[in-house]
């Protein structure tokens, strides 16, 4: 099989809307390789979240194939898909999505526990190291509610990376943060990308994010309109906004 981490071939996604179905993606061909720091850009309703869902194995295509680890996600059961996510993917959400009743350390430990691969002390060491890495070594026993937005997103990053996944998906990771904090979060991810070699894929509106990305995939009306390697200036952002307003 190919050396890509994830590969999309002729992917079509339809959503039922009452009696008709709406096509969210029209035949997408796309692949990602190890170490990429890529961004999917596009206005609301362009299909970027759908694309991210398919890549993140939380949804399966209507037609075409998504190959993750060389396996076609459309042919997997719910249980196998879940396992695939657990061992290969990390998620960073727009609203952080931490479990409020668990401590910072427990939130980060959660995927390791679900993996059943490590002993308690191994897990603990891994969690502490990861939290140090994101700069939250002092907050091990805090609850998410005791942290600021930026700190929470750092916890989420630690949770996404603690299993050393092949690909980390970040759905508008800075949307709920002010620009300074958002920037520091992006810097952190970039740093992790460069030092650990973790592959990142964002969906975003944010020009600052796109500026940092090594590759920007532009989606419009369910189609890839541009797949450019390297950062682009903000002119397109205005176009995106106009499209969003139009939508």
């Amino acid at each position, binding site marked *: 099989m190919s050396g890509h981490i994830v590969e999309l071939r002729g992917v079509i996604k339809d959503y039922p809307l009452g009696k008709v179905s709406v096509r969210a993606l029209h035949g997408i061909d796309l692949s990602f390789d190890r170490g990429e720091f890529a961004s999917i850009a596009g206005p609301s309703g362009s299909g970027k979240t759908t694309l991210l869902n398919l890549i993140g194995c*939380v949804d399966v295509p209507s037609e075409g194939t998504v190959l993750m680890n060389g396996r076609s996600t459309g042919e997997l059961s719910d249980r196998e898909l879940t*396992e695939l996510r657990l061992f290969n993917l990390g*998620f960073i959400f727009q609203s952080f999505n931490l479990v409020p*009743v*668990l401590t910072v350390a427990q939130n980060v430990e*959660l*995927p390791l526990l*679900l993996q*059943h691969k490590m002993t308690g002390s191994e897990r603990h060491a891994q969690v502490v190291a990861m939290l140090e890495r994101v700069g939250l070594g002092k907050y091990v026993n805090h609850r998410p509610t005791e942290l600021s937005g930026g700190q929470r997103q750092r916890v989420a990053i630690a949770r996404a990376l603690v299993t050393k996944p092949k690909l980390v998906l970040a759905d508008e990771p800075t949307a709920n943060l002010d620009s300074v904090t958002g920037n520091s979060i992006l810097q952190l991810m970039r740093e992790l990308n460069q030092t650990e070699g973790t592959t990142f894929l964002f969906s975003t509106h944010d020009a600052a994010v796109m500026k940092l990305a090594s590759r920007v995939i532009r989606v419009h009306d369910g189609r890839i309109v541009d797949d450019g390697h390297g950062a682009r200036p903000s002119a397109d952002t205005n176009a995106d906004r106009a499209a969003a307003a139009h939508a």
Partner: protein
Amino acid sequence: MTAVIKLLLQLGVQSLLAHRTKSLIVGGLLAFGTFLVVTSLAVLDSVTRATRASLVESIAGDVQIYSKDAKDSLALLGGIGFGTEDIGEIDSYGPVRDAVLKVDNVAGVVPMGIANAAVASPGDLDRTLNALREAVKGNDAANVMLLADRVRTIARVLQDQQQKQAAVAASENNGAGEVLARALSDELWAGMTTDPLATLDWLDTKLAPLGEQGNQFYLRLVGTDLDGFKQTFKRIKIVDGEYVPSGTRGVLVGQAFLDRRLKFAVAMHLDTIHNELVKGQTIAANKTLQDTLAKARRASPRLVYMLPPKDLPVVTASIAAELGKPPGELAPLLVDFLTMDDTNFERRYQMFYDVIAARVQLYPFQVGDTITLTSFTKSGYLRSINVKVWGIYVIEGLESSDIASALSITDLMTFRELYGRRTAALDAELVKMKAASGAKEVNREDAEAALFGGSDAVEVQAVAESAAEVVLDKVDRQESFTFDPKDANEGFALTTAVLLKDPDKARATQREISAAVAPLGLQAVNWQTATGIVGQLTMVVSGVLLGAIFILFLVTTVILNNSLVMATLERVAEIGTLRAIGAQKRFVNAMITFETATLGALAGVVGALTSVLFITWLSKVGIPAPADVLQVLFGGPRLYPTLTASNVVAGVVATLIVGVFATLYPARLAMRVQPVVAMQGKE
């Protein structure tokens, strides 16, 4: 794995803490449910044990055996409706006893028969006239005077009643007025000295029919092997007289039954008031007690002629002194005396017993009296027998319950006679009667010849025996007052009572006994069934209580289910996130179930502990039995419930089941949450 369980537990506990109010309400509901289950199971078990003790150990036995052909079901203490039930027969008790004694868990076996008998006691006027006749016969002039006075008193009471009747209904008096007027005239009583017998005859024929009917009351009798009964049923205690000696006929009557049903009305009413006052009631505030007091006053005229004539002055003086009035007519003084209030009741109650009741017969019979039992036999003719009242019994712990002592106990021979069963004594009597009347066994085939046909011997014999008529009177009925004790352990009975060593194994033992007696055409039932309404009450109470608990749990399940669905919907984003980062559906299921299970376990423990404390407190103070039926169910005036480990386990398990059951639907909902929702989640 333990780390996952720890995590689930923590997720559960933390989530419960995070939704404190919801957890408190749902947990409180579950705790209350557990409390109710544990408490009611404990009380029910205690009631069953207490009822068992009061019925089983006093008279019923754990298991009753009777005929499979019975038309009615056995109801030892009486069922619904009146009359004698047809519960079939046990022709020969011996084989039943032998079969039952082979069963392991059996402690004792006793034969039993049930009969309802009427007992008549003469009315006051009849009694007085009899005494007067005796006094006249014995030339006891002083007593004649006193008794004649008493007849006049009764006549005055009757006249009073008759006038009141005439006032409300213009009924024809059939000349009663004239008779009463004459009975009160001095002219008649002057005749007492000149021609006492003629006067007595007039009183007997004219006045006596106007007197009240004699007292008749009914005894529900259980005939049994009295020796075996005494050894088996140990809660029966004799409080007056003695136990019927072995091989002797006799009857034992329950004390509470006597006190509540047969005692002289004035005393009975005063007892009732006394008991209520002890419980804290007051006459002033209680209309029923005032009515009871009025009833006592209305019944008081009888006292005047129940008191021995020679004691009248003493009694009158005492009562007048209490009232602060000059001695005079006793009847109005008594009415005044019985017009009591809360301040003087206890003193006068005591005085009533010391001064009046001590001098009259409070019951229709006394220990040592021979009473005449009259009963319809199985074949429908009336049968009367004289039986001595040997003693008054109480059932230990149930001294004041008249239901528990409603049964009078007699020997098996007396029962058999009342039932119309032939006994050796009856057979002997019959032989003598046959011999006396010259009756003779005649086969159907020979009947014609015997009646009409020609053997000389028949005629000769008939002539020869006709002179022997006198012999009839000399049939010795005395011999039937005793019998061979062995007879009571063999032969005819209606049922067999079986007492068990270990009542906890009752079900299994009942099955064994059923199997053992089935070949004899008999069936075995448990005591609840056998005692009729009273025993079945425990089953009804259990049913109602368990039904109520079931409904409560149903409601709890619905409420719990609702609140868990709400909670699950609130947590959709969290669940979606967990699913997205790699949690399987079963983890989500376990998470939701664990949460309720944790709450259920906590609530269960709290509820059970509260129940333990509550029952411990109850076991010290007891639950009072306000009604008589409850005394039987409670095994005494108070129930002291106790708790068993199984009650607690059952309560906690029931709560956990309800909790988990209520989680089924919300957990299903949670498992349906798609990981994709995490992507849309807003915190």
